[in-house]
């Protein structure tokens, strides 16, 4: 068994690009769901709009990188308005239904034949990350210690990614400590009560939807920049549900929950997968074949989360007292 491979891939998973992408998606979901109680099941759509906004602006229209970023962010804000205006006045479950449907519609538009000229159909778009790597200040080489480390391209992406994560966490920390965040948390508890105290609930819900969507959109950028491409099917409902899993794993309404949740999530995911593969290859496990490792990995990760919810329903950082209140 190649323990070194298992170890390095696991360590890389803890700080790798997946943590950046899903951590940002989860920070957004945490603002929506954890703090405001909004059930946005279309987080993948915000990421898709951002990724495609960047790609199409650069590849199809031929505008510079920064314009692409602005287009992606504007797309996320627009999507939040589009989803929020008709649904935020309604009961919470309507937003869930509308967002999950809207995310699918957006994915299908991106992969549709009719817009193949623009979005590239099911192949998506590629070739838009050169500008990002051109401003890479790190010279070519290996960045890390011993077997652990990344090449200069990945290292550059991770530095920018982790700085972005840190900034987002700092923003969430400041906001949620403030009276603004207090209104959001109060809306999660009971929006009628908040209305009766003179707060414009609709406006706050919209601000929350936009903020969480924009932070999710940053995750969409990093996905595109790392992989050098965006394809429609990447931004399926699975991406959104991974983000929710991460939020619950880390502990809802906790500033660092999404980041640590994403790290734990990907470590488990990668470790279980590689461990099983190696064990099967080495002949320690004979009941499954190597092709069955993929699905079984999902099953085991799922089992892990069920156990988590049974034994630590508040997540890693959550407060047990808060969960107990739900039972009252």
């Amino acid at each position, binding site marked *: 068994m190649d323990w070194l491979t298992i170890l390095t891939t696991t360590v890389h998973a803890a700080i790798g690009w997946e943590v950046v992408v899903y951590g940002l998606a989860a920070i957004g979901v945490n603002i929506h769901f954890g703090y405001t109680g909004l059930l946005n099941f279309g987080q993948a759509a915000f990421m898709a709009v951002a990724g495609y906004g960047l790609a199409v602006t650069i590849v199809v229209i031929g505008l510079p990188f920064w314009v692409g970023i602005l287009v992606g962010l504007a797309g996320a804000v627009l999507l939040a308005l589009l989803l929020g205006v008709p649904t935020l006045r309604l009961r919470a479950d309507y937003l869930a239904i509308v967002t999950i449907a809207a995310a699918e519609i957006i994915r299908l538009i991106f992969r549709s034949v009719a817009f193949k000229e623009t979005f590239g159909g099911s192949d998506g778009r590629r070739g838009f990350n050169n500008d990002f790597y051109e401003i890479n200040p790190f010279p070519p080489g290996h960045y890390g210690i011993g077997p652990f480390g990344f090449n200069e391209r990945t290292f550059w992406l991770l530095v920018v990614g982790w700085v972005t994560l840190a900034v987002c966490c700092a*923003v969430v920390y*400041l*906001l949620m*400590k*403030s*009276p*603004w*965040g*207090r*209104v959001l*948390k*109060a809306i*999660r*508890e*009971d929006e*009628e*009560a*908040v*209305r*009766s*105290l*003179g*707060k*414009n*609930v609709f406006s706050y819900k919209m*601000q929350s939807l936009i*903020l969480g969507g924009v932070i999710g959109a940053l995750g969409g950028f990093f996905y595109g920049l790392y992989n050098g491409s965006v394809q429609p099917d990447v931004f399926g409902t699975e991406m959104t549900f991974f983000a929710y899993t991460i939020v619950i794993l880390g502990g809802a309404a906790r500033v660092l929950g999404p980041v640590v949740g994403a790290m734990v999530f990907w470590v488990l995911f990668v470790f279980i997968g590689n461990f099983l593969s190696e064990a099967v290859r080495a002949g320690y496990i004979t009941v499954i074949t190597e092709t069955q490792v993929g699905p079984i990995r999902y099953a085991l990760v799922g089992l892990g989360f069920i156990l988590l919810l049974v034994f630590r329903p508040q997540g890693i950082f959550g407060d047990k*007292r*808060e969960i107990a*209140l739900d039972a*009252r």
Partner: protein
Amino acid sequence: MPDNQTTTRKAAALAAFQGLEHEPGVAKPDAILTADNVVRRFGGLTAVDVGHVEIQRGSITALIGPNGAGKTTFFNQLTGFDTADAGSWSFNGKAMNGVPAHKVARSGMVRTFQLTKALSKLTVMENMRLGAQGQKGENFFRALIPGSWRGQEDEITKRAEELLVRFKLDAKSEDFAGSLSGGQRKLLEMARALMVNPELVMLDEPMAGVNPALTQSLLGHVKDLREQGMTVLFVEHDMDMVRDISDWVIVMAQGAIIAEGPPDSIMSDHRVIDAYLGAHHDAPLSEEELQQQLHEAEAALEAEAAEEEAAK
């Protein structure tokens, strides 16, 4: 001297009602809230159909009526929590129909809920702070700069602490509101409403589910609101309490206002008795009627017994 003031405020309120007719919709000398032809239907059911009503400024007015009379629904219309099918109402002379709930609250008309709405996962103190108006830190961009709202937050906290002491919740200040008992939640909701600095406080059954000892202190608080110059409109079923604290009583039944009057005489109003007991209980039974009903019942019983005998 608080005692002196108490008597003057109460006296002033009572004087305002002196000599008013005991008719529904009677005009008050200085109305803070006026409503006209407010109608709310749920399908075929007309839950509220109020022709005209005025609430006297600086008084404690009770709104009573049997279950399902439409009191809560009427509150919901006035405070913007529901959209009336028809009607207009004004607060301090400003039209309020169609105004969304948060703007109603901002204009100084604050309500509490029959089913208490404590914000469970916020602490008692955070619940209180939420009530304060015009908070700089509630703006997204200012929220990011703690220095821009800290000072105001401290003032708000101080005011909240004072109120919590008055409502005997100061020991619970850092507990989750969700951990409070039912009665304590009622207290918190009332205190939180006061953080808004309202002119008119509308309390929907503030004493429901509160133990008698706490009720006494709640009653004290409600009277206190009038002493501070606020107007109170409250819904209550317990007539002893209504008699104790209210200056004027408005009676609702089947959506309409059927009577108004001072608390000590309102319950003897025949329209009110009809509303509570049903119209066929119209007047108290006379001696003969009572005898006759008794005979009828006896006869029916005897007939039944005889039938049973025959069947055997």
